[in-house]
């Protein structure tokens, strides 16, 4: 009976951290901070649920332990890969901004780079690039005068 009670407490602990992690993923302002919030679901939330399940159903505790170890191994690797992709995207966007802002190469409004990137970049980033492009064009014409 006491073990059942402990298991129920662990289940609600896991549910609480799952809810908090999802709330963080919705509310956080940045990609990397969202990754930080979703890491809590994979470790604390899922581990609470697995611990509660192991306490409530002791016959399957070995399988639950194996599942927990597997998640403990794979979840940081997946999070690291997503963070690396976020970082690489920012690098690409910065390179594009520098390329567009250079006064030596006066960028036409229909630059081929902007067309290539449309499939990958989000709408706000494309807006940023177009604005930087227009700013570069204006400064270039001003220098000519």
């Amino acid at each position, binding site marked *: 009976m006491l073990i059942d009670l402990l298991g129920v407490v662990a289940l609600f602990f896991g549910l609480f951290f799952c*809810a908090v992690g999802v709330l963080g993923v919705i509310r956080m302002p940045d990609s990397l901070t969202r990754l930080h919030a979703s890491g809590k679901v994979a470790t604390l939330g899922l581990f609470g649920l697995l611990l509660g399940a192991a306490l409530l159903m002791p016959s*399957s505790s070995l399988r639950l332990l194996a599942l927990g170890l597997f998640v403990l191994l794979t979840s940081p690797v997946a999070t690291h890969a997503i963070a690396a992709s976020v970082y690489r995207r920012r690098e690409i966007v910065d390179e594009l901004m520098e390329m567009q802002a250079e006064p030596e190469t006066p960028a036409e409004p229909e630059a081929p780079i902007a067309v290539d990137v449309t499939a990958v970049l989000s709408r706000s980033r494309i807006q940023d690039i177009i604005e930087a492009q227009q700013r570069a064009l204006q400064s270039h014409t001003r220098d000519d005068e």
Partner: protein
Amino acid sequence: MIESAIAQTAIRLVLLGLVIVLIPASYRVVVGETLPDRLQAVDLITTLLIGIIVMLALVEGTEVFVDMAVALAAFAFIGTISIARYISEGRTF
């Protein structure tokens, strides 16, 4: 099966809470500003699904569902890694 009625009710409550939590998690998949955001939200949903499958194993009292959860975790890991590498490097492997 678990005998005590309180534990059964608590398990069903937690299962209901996990299913409800899935709905706001899918918000980030639809709205997500960039591609990594959507990928991360899908990864989060898969983690929640693993928890839901474990809860289902508790409700039904069948241990085979835990093996299903292990298989889902393995496939989700492979999918996340390959899509993340596709975003960052332009190729999967």
